[in-house]
């Protein structure tokens, strides 16, 4: 096995190990945070002014769910269940947490993925425009990302719904999972996400344009379009790969609002419901899920960088010398 390959394998293994540690810490930390917050789903609903239950009644039910035990004991019990693959029961709905999460996941994953693709398309469109349009138009286009960033997600959503849903009847809000409704929900999510992506692409493109190799290519008589497509795009894309990985978090956060406004059921609305009620098992499951996704995406991003740019070597210098 070549040193480069075994170096790559070591990188994969160490990153996987780190990932598992990250997920474990995310679980423990969020368990503690959620336990410190006042109220839980059971106590909240029993204490609803409408319920009219006595303290004794409330205490008996709270004890049934083990919520009267010390936090450390609750954590150990939950960890035990978690390791054996049992995510527990939602305190709020009484349904298995795994069912709730895996019911909500496909819808959100589809929304986020569509949004990511739309965001990439938007960002690339902006970059191409900035690079190839006449300076005046390009200048205007350069300010588009900061405009996108400054408009809140829910305003974009409400404007899109108002125009395309209620005025033009392009889609109906009561069928949030139809392809058209999904497209507009994804667009709502994509617009703010495309902004940082476009900015990073534009600025790294600016840097690459001033590099010697670009000047040489231009001086050899290649057209702007050819230089852009053949020489500049690939190195400029490098920082955006890392950026995309970071944006996954942004997509999940934005999904809460987008799903709320478009009436979609997904991980975002599940989180919103669970935070409001203090439904600990569901919150923990979602935090772990987010950690897993984050770790995986970053892993993929880190591991693909060496292929995009051979200069970033994965093997250590010493090893190179030995081989």
């Amino acid at each position, binding site marked *: 096995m070549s040193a480069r390959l075994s170096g790559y394998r070591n990188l994969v293994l160490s990153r996987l190990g780190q990932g598992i540690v990250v997920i474990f810490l995310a679980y423990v930390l969020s368990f503690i945070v959620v336990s410190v917050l006042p109220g839980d789903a059971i106590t909240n609903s029993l204490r609803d002014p409408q319920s009219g239950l006595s303290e004794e009644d409330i205490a008996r039910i709270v004890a049934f769910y083990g919520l009267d035990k010390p936090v450390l004991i609750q954590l150990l019990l939950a960890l035990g269940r978690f390791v054996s693959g049992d995510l527990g029961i939602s305190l709020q709905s009484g349904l298995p947490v795994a069912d709730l999460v895996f019911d909500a996941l496909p819808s959100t994953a589809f929304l986020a993925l569509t949004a990511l693709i739309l965001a990439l398309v938007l960002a690339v469109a902006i970059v191409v425009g900035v690079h190839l349009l006449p300076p005046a138009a390009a200048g205007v286009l350069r300010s588009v990302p900061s405009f996108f960033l400054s408009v809140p997600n829910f305003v974009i959503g409400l404007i899109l719904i108002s125009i395309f849903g209620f005025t033009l009847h392009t889609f109906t809000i009561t069928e949030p999972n139809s392809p058209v409704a999904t497209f507009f929900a994804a667009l709502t999510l994509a617009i703010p996400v495309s902004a940082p992506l476009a900015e990073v692409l534009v600025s790294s493109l600016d840097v690459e344009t001033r590099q010697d190799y670009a000047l040489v290519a231009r001086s050899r008589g290649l057209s702007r379009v050819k230089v852009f497509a053949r020489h500049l795009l690939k190195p400029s894309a490098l920082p955006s790969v890392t950026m995309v990985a970071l944006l996954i978090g942004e997509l999940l956060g934005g999904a809460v609002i987008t799903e709320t406004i478009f009436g979609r*059921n997904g991980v975002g609305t599940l989180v919103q419901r669970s935070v409001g009620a203090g439904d600990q098992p569901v919150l923990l499951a979602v935090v772990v899920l987010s950690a897993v996704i984050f770790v995986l995406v970053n892993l993929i991003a880190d591991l693909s960088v060496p292929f995009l740019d051979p200069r970033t070597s994965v093997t250590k210098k010493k090893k190179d010398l030995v081989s």
Partner: protein
Amino acid sequence: MTSTLVKRRSFLTGTGTLAALAILTACGNKPDVESVGSSTPVRGGALTFLIQGFDAGWISSKTSISSYEGNLWGHLTDKLVYVNEKGDLSPWVAESWEENSDATEFVLHLQKDVTFSDGSPVDANAVVENINAWAVGDAERGIAKVGLFPSANFESAKATDTRTVKVNFSSPTLGFIATLGYHGCILLAPATLKSNTDEQADLAKTIGSGPFTLKSWQQGESYVLQRREDYSWGPKALGYSGPAYLDTLTYKVVRDASVRTSTVLSGQADVSFNVEPQEIDSLISQGFSVSTPRYLGFVDGFQVNTQTFPTNQASVRQALQHGIDRQEILSTIYTQDWQAATTFIQGTVPEAGDFADYFAFDQQKATDSLEKDGWKLESDGYRYKDGKLLEITLAANPYVPSDKAVDELIAQQLQRIGIKLNLKVVDVANYSAWQNSEPPLLHTSRSFVDVGTVAGILTNRNGGEDWFKLGDSDQKLNKLSDQIAQARNREERAKVADDLQKYVLDQAYFVPLVQLVQRLYLSSPKVRGIQYNGLAYANFYTAWVTQ
């Protein structure tokens, strides 16, 4: 993560109104007025009802049923007794009942041939199992009793034949029959009651005898109910007992209020839950209807803590009672659909009296009370006594959306008499912690179906909730409370209820604001025949959609 989410959420609701206005102007096209006019019910058709969310889950007996879940349960299940918006009780699954002279023994006679949707009969045995579940619950399985059920003196429920149930209490319980019309007391098939909590959480496995059955559902998103063709035991009080007119009734969760409103305005849905009071006039002028049914219970107002500074001082309580201008609240925040409180219980409760004089707005009286007690106005515009500032921290009730605006106005009103009101924002998740912190004033919104409930709440007697933190120190309140609890007939009890209301208001233990409207319904002119029960729940059983 949590803090950003909470912030985002409150940001979202805060700006929702603005966005709603934008949308309202964007789609102000008038609905088709031609369809208005027909008053003969039409069979068939589908109705879509937009609701804020089904978050409390589907274990009916585990917790109190929120208005959202309660509305859906109301179509899948029946109750023994129907209670209308005036608090009148009438037969439903129980076609008649008798009680003995001291209201300790009740006999319920059940309608013939009522069945659950799994085919099992709604007979005396099934009713006994339900009553036991409401009265006692099953803590071993994590199932609480129904909060308002008179459990403390409940003895037994027995089937004497297939259609007769005898229920015994150890002491007079005038409120028992009324409780059977309460939204927590829904009849479920014995098979459902026996199942474990995780099975009860699955709506498809919870079987009722209502006019609709569950056709399909996506948790937290949409729920489609379909008519039960063999249904023939609807409450007589609704003027109809046969199968529902609608083919299907669809509940659709749309969390954002402005989107719900606009969806109905654009004709994509028929009825929506809760609009902002300020939007009502504009909606009506566009041809839509907004129903603001009141429910039986306590008015929107403050429980006063008599043990916490500064409401432990009678002068401060009196100043609050007379320093709040309720008329200004009505005219500033609400529309003409809202009514002034006449006492601390809703005007629809049969025993509610008109004691508005006891808490009439009188700024002079309020300031006199404070002056006499030594609360001196300082140069900063607030009152001090023994170097202590007269300030109260108040949190709006997150269960009543308009309370925040009401509190802001009250803060201005109290500032005029030198009381400083600090407003605190508390969401549903943190409200119980707020309640436990024993604040000087606590917003109340509590429904009940029988005035007897009042006895078990005001003091700590009979396992009561001790709303005013008096313990049993107030002999007069104890006596009145006991008399209500032990009353054997309704006339006697009504007289005591009068005395109790006067006393509580005179002592300023409770500061009423306005009669509470917690559930508002926006509906398209195509929808007819919606009825509202004593808990202000929309009933679509008798509704139909014009073509």
